[in-house]
């Protein structure tokens, strides 16, 4: 794709005159996988148009770590809708540079949609992108955060923490044991039926799965 073609797709996003045409234009731009589109995607996250935001997240996730610095710089502290989508993108990309922002968001963001998406993301960070000597401290921080998030007041955030813990537990044998003990406790203490069911599913799947490394 030439840069002219990319600019044309970006202009189509800027000139869209209905929610539907905006979504379509953003999907087309996402499919092009061009780094030049990153600022446009980030702007779209703030348009309060869920269809277009889903497409913009998809576009950012396809670009992966190239999109991370802009996402981290431009994260919107005031618009929780836009912030939720940014954190969703960062969670799906899994770049460890997002660890601090995901930790803070999972623990204490005002919006439950942000806490839940950050909790899931904390479990699926690409740890191998970190220098070897930083991995264990970073994973320990994620583990500690997720164990705490299991006490959140909202069922869906606790659900997401279970999902995050399941993924994180698969990285180390001692995490796997610790998380299994935690899931057994949840089975007795967790008030929400859906969260208990998810913890049981996580527990069974962890038993069946070999530790990755």
């Amino acid at each position, binding site marked *: 794709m030439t840069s002219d073609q990319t600019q044309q797709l970006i202009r189509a996003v800027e000139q869209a005159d209905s929610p539907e045409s905006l979504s379509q234009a953003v999907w087309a731009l996402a499919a092009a996988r061009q780094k030049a589109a990153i600022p446009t995607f980030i702007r779209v996250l703030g348009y309060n148009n869920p269809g277009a935001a889903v497409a913009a997240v998809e576009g950012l996730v396809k670009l992966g770590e190239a999109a991370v610095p802009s996402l981290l710089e431009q994260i919107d502290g005031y618009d929780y809708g836009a912030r939720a989508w940014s954190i969703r993108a960062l969670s799906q990309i899994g770049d460890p540079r997002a660890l601090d922002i995901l930790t803070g968001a999972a623990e204490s963001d005002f919006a439950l949609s942000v806490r839940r998406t950050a909790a899931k993301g904390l479990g699926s960070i690409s740890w191998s992108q970190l220098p070897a000597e930083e991995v264990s401290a970073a994973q320990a921080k994620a583990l500690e955060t997720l164990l705490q998030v299991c006490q959140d007041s909202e069922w869906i955030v606790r659900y997401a923490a279970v999902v995050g813990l399941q993924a994180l537990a698969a990285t180390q044998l001692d995490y796997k044991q610790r998380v299994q003990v935690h899931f057994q406790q949840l089975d007795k203490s967790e008030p929400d039926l859906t969260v208990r069911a*998810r913890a049981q599913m996580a527990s069974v799947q962890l038993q069946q799965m070999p530790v990755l490394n």
Partner: protein
Amino acid sequence: MGESHSEQEPLTVEQVIANLQQREDLGLRYYAAWWLGKFRVNESAAIDALLAALEDEADRSPDGGYPLRRNAARALGKLDAPRAVPALIGCLDNSDYYVREAAAQSLEELGDTSCTPVLMKLLDGGVAAAQPVPGKPHLVQPYEAVLEALGTLQASEAVPQIQPFLDHPTEKVQYAAARAMYQLSENPVYGERLVQALQEDRLPLRRSALMDLGAIGYLPAAEAIAKTPAENSLKLISLKGLLEHHLESNLLSEKSIEIMNLMDSLL
């Protein structure tokens, strides 16, 4: 649903009940009634104060409505208070539409079937009578709430009155009828009617169908719920409804794992 604060509430239950009982500040009373429901203060003193608020004459809206009674009626539905049932049944013929709506919703939540004959009366005249009130954003009766309550309360004797509402001109009333018919018959035709509603162009209709499918726990809708263009928060609540209907018999079946995998993808 929605976003919520994680801040600590500084109010105490005693204070809030006193706020509800005082007469000077109407705003404080209105808030107190909401608060008792929100935090499910299931104390006898709270229920007494809310029952008294159902008789309130002080708080009137410009169009003659009873704002405090609306909030009190809504709160009582959240308090697991069977002794509120007769008073809520009394609210079903209140002159304020929103008091009748709140009462029908709360009676549904309380699960006491003694209200079904009075609920059915609100369907009198059938679809022909179920017209919009000129100048108001609502119909003459809170049909959605009434139909949903009759379904949840398993009022199978109401089927002949409910069925015609599947063809009411207002989509959300059709959905409420489909939801009730499914609950009363478990016939998948009605579940599929709601699945079809997930394809509507207008987002509020898709949202409504998501809530209805969650309420009836219609399992074949799982994929369609995950795919419909709407907020993930609502889709997650809807899928939770499916899962929990199903979990009663089986905690980790193939189907429940499938639903949880869909939920995971929406986080």
